[in-house]
């Protein structure tokens, strides 16, 4: 069993991406991961705070890093935005020593100090590198044979920090799909933007971006899309009805978290994976696999 400090982020803990949090919990022990939720974590601040005030936003994010530093464990988050923002705080503190001094002066007021030693990691990267696809493949009892999946990386898993996967043409999620026995669909727009939180303030702009993504997946024959980001899932899933209205299209593409598909392939009870939380229902396309999982129980 490997131990990690766990940072669910606001949307996966109880908000629009609650299915992500539930399915992460459901698969973690089968993958040999012990996720210990960071005590009393606060919102990372996300892009809105970094666009508002630099010292406040970095200080807020560093409160989480300081709390995590006490655990001595890597900090793992399933949310691509939290991943980018917490990593950004780390790199800003490293790059600007004056900023680090000020942030620690701010945090001293709440009895905290951050030395700078926490490694922030994305849940998908941890599963890919620490657990490994070979291990996952060996545990597959319910291969997702014939299921045509488009791998959607979104932006902030692979950018801006290089290192984990190619920021221009990532491959890791592609490999996961094939290791679960499913069929990988070509998806040229796999690392393109869904609009993120601009879907709220610039809806027309975001719906245009979402439409391109859905078209790219659908025209290549995908039956569903898998994502690694709460915001991407909500934008592609919940806003699909508005895309269809605006562009007179008839997309009907379920958007699932990669954790849900790993769980299904590992034979974990479908109910424990919160598969019914999708606005676009995945019931029909997953029927051949959920039945197998249920009878195996």
């Amino acid at each position, binding site marked *: 069993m490997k131990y990690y400090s766990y940072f669910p982020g*606001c*949307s996966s803990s*109880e*908000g*629009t991406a*609650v*299915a992500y949090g539930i399915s992460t919990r459901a698969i973690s022990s089968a993958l040999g991961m012990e996720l210990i939720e960071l005590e*009393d*974590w*606060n*919102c990372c*601040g*996300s*892009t*809105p*705070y*970094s*666009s*508002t*005030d*630099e*010292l*406040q936003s970095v*200080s*807020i994010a560093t*409160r989480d890093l300081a709390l995590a530093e006490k655990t001595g464990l890597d900090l793992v988050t399933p949310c691509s935005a939290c991943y*980018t923002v917490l990593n950004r705080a780390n790199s*800003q503190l490293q790059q600007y020593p004056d*900023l680090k001094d*000020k942030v620690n*002066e*701010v*945090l001293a*007021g*709440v009895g905290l100090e951050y030395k700078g030693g926490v490694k922030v990691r994305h849940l998908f990267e941890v599963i890919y590198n620490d657990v490994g696809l070979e291990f996952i493949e060996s545990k597959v009892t319910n291969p997702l044979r014939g299921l045509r999946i488009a791998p959607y990386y979104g*932006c*902030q898993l692979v*950018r*801006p920090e*290089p290192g984990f996967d190619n*920021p221009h043409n990532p491959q890791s999620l592609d490999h996961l799909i094939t290791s679960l026995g499913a069929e990988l669909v070509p998806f040229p727009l796999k690392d*393109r*933007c869904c*609009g*993120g*939180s*601009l879907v*709220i*303030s*610039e*809806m027309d*702009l*975001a719906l245009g971006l979402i439409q391109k993504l859905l078209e790219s997946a659908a025209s290549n024959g995908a039956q569903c899309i898998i994502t690694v980001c709460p915001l991407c899932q*909500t934008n592609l899933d*919940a806003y699909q*009805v*508005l895309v269809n209205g605006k562009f007179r299209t008839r997309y009907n593409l379920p958007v699932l978290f990669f954790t849900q598909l790993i769980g299904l392939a590992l034979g974990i009870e479908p109910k424990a994976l919160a598969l019914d*939380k*999708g*606005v676009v229902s995945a019931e029909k396309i997953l029927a051949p696999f959920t039945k197998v999982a249920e009878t195996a129980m």
Partner: protein
Amino acid sequence: MGKTGHNQTATIDRDSFLEEVYSVPGGESIRWCIQCGTCSGSCPNVTRMDFSPRKTIALIRTGKRHDVLNSNSMWVCASCYLCTVRCPKDVKITELMHALERLSVAHGVTSSRVSTPAMYRAFVDSIKSNGRTHELGMMMKYYLSAIFTGKMNPFATIKMLPVALKLFTHGRMSIKPTKIKGAEQIKTIVERAKALGGVQ
């Protein structure tokens, strides 16, 4: 004399805006920009921007403070970082966009045409009061402010209803915000950061 004076003022303005951008985290990297336009060609939202990322940098260099900070360009940046990873000179363009958003608000010259600042404020307020983002509360606050400031037609929000309802019936919208135990700590952090006068 008049003419010289005018030129002097222009030089000071240009230098002060450029120095200001250089002095904020992320801003210093525009020194290396060679105006190749790779950023603009990579941006998914460039067609909606008053000035492309490349042109924004060119305008900063010529000291066009008001034009840049009053534009909508940075407010339609979705932080996808494609420009940043493609830039051949390692200019941190996404960071620059965030820095320009902060400067625009700090100087009080944000364009009234843009809606994103109000959304960001609603988001940040949610964190300040609870330590967490409450999606439903944040969105309601934003939509109300957008309607009251005339940026959004009340009927336009009706379009959002099917989305909100579906999220709600699927158990994805929590009604009550969650307050962390350390919510007071968040307030203290914000106050102390303000007292220190930010990053400058």
